[in-house]
């Protein structure tokens, strides 16, 4: 390998090292520390002036106590399970809503498609936080949705949607829809229409042709979209804390409370480390499927 090539590869690695690996090790280190009433609120702290002996002393004070605590207190694994459940259900709901969206865009006249894709991306032009706040205005008891439903006479009492899991699902589907629509659209857009005709010509009904050709060939897009929604949803904090109720258990929310309400940085860090370990599984699976797709396209 030439020097220039090494240099070229060094740049992204240095970037990852500085901005991902180093912070991660800092978090791991805090997770292994103990809570203390001090600034920063944990002990031991790393003291360079004490030299090698100080470093050995520092290492000896690290332990897995916080992880043991997480395992013993059932709040935490219940929260992980509940987050997992919400993320899975929300991903499936986003897929159910997103696929028809993507399909409709791919079926639209070609001169319309760029504008329709732009409309999907348009919400990104406003702050995520503001958009979630706007949902409060829609979903609350006096919100637009309840007002509208009562005006049409469908309901006489306002529906309690805000501060429930339903509001969380609505929020996630709304916020993450573009991440589902875009990869699916990308695969559907490349789909050769004559494949569907060929399937019909060979004996498929319209529905069978759609199933055996369109759905099959959209699979890589569906998988990509599901991962892109599932991974951030699992650790989502803003949506459950603004739209969810007191009983909505999500790991992001717990993490935030440990850090800022309890100021227990070591436990919060331990939660973060476990969340990361849980996320590694879907991320690796996602990378694999992307890799397979690339090989197939070669």
């Amino acid at each position: 390998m030439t020097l220039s090539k090494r240099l070229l590869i060094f740049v992204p690695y240095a970037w990852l090292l500085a901005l991902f690996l180093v912070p991660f090790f800092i978090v791991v280190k805090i997770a292994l520390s103990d809570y203390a009433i001090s600034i920063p609120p944990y002990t031991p702290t790393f003291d360079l002036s004490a030299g090698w002996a100080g470093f050995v002393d520092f290492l000896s004070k690290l332990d897995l106590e916080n992880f043991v605590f997480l395992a013993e207190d059932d709040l935490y694994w219940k929260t992980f399970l509940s987050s997992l459940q919400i993320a899975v259900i929300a991903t499936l709901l986003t897929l159910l809503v997103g696929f028809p969206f993507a399909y409709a865009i791919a079926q639209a006249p070609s001169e319309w498609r760029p504008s329709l894709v732009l409309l999907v991306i348009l919400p990104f032009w406003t702050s995520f936080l503001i958009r979630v706040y706007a949902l409060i205005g829609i979903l609350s008891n006096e919100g637009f949705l309840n007002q509208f439903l009562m005006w049409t006479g469908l309901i006489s009492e306002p529906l309690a949607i805000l501060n429930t899991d339903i509001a969380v699902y609505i929020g996630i589907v709304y916020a993450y829809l573009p991440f589902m629509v875009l990869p699916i659209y990308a695969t559907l857009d490349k789909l050769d229409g004559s494949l569907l005709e060929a399937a019909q010509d060979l004996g498929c009904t319209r529905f069978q042709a759609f199933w055996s050709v369109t759905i099959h060939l959209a699979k890589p897009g569906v998988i990509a979209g599901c991962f892109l929604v599932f991974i951030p949803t699992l650790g989502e904090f803003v949506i459950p804390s603004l739209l969810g109720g007191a009983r909505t258990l999500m790991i992001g929310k717990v993490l935030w409370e440990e850090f800022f309400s309890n100021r227990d940085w070591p436990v919060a860090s331990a939660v973060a480390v476990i969340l990361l370990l849980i996320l590694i599984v879907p991320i690796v699976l996602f990378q694999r499927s992307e890799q397979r797709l690339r090989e197939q396209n070669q």
Partner: protein
Amino acid sequence: MSNNTPFAPWNDEAAVPLIQFDGVSKKYGDFLAIDNIDLKIYPREFFALLGPSGCGKTTLMRMLAGFEEASAGKITIDNKDMAGIPPNKRAVNMMFQSYALFPHLNVVDNLAFGLKRSRMAKSEIDGRVEEMLRLVQLQKFAKRKPHQLSGGQRQRVALARALAKAPKLLLLDEPLGALDKKLREETQFELMDIQEKTGTTFVIVTHDQEEAMTVASRIAVMDHGKLVQIDTPDRVYENPNSIYVAGFIGDVNIIEGRVSHLAGEEAQLCWAEGTSDIRGMAGPKIQKGEEAAFAVRPEKVALSVQEPIERNNRVAGRVEDIAYLGNMSTYYVRLENGNLIKSQVANDRRISRRSVTWNDQVWLSWSDTAGIVLPSGGNPS
């Protein structure tokens, strides 16, 4: 029918056509894509639809496949009215221009795709797929995905897949369009061979007149949604019924004039002052005294230095250009009245021994039956 009888069911009054179009039209909004077409195609025919792009040939084929419905008229296949019958309910298969191979399935699964939807037993499907692989000689590539095949191999998979269900009628949409010239020529003969072996009726859509001439038993030349001429390749070439057909198929010299004599199969055309009239065959729909055009193929025009007094049709001119094509040369000869006539001469000698060169005065001549007098109008394209 003995083997010596030429295959020509279209001349047989008793023959039953497989496909029949009765006054079929197709409109897209205000645009008339197919204009009141009547057509019969017989079993075991290799029928070519030929025309420039946008002439309606693909629409005609898609109506047979069931992807388009006729706006007016009736299409019958095997004596059954096809109105309202979807593509999957027709004993018709199509080979698509893009081949439309399923990218996620390997060759075997592509071939089995249609069979699996026809309630065929698993063992039967395997046998049929094997048979198809052998037919197109792709046994070695059975497990490959389409993207691992060459263009020629994909073309053969597409053909085999379309034939797998043993359709009564196979439609081929520009089947060789994506292949290079050499492979295309080889594949043309393969197509004819397969058509003969399977006994399937083939309808091919093409804009390549050479391809149509090579493979087809009959050619339908289309223009603006109408069938201009339906005939065997040799008749379309030798007896075109209009200047359009003469110009679309092969190269042609056109001389405009007025019909001065018309008797049975003979016609004469008065074309320039001070010259004798051109003698040729009488085409359809010409009238004595009316304007007409004489069409003659460049290879039927002889070139000589001496005046060929034994021929009635002879004109003098000057060689303006020579196109050397290796096996033959085309001489562009300017006549005294300004007409440019092409004469194609086989190069039976080495080029260094060529006796005629640029700016030479030469004579062009052709026999009384070499050309045809056609009604004028309809520009050759």
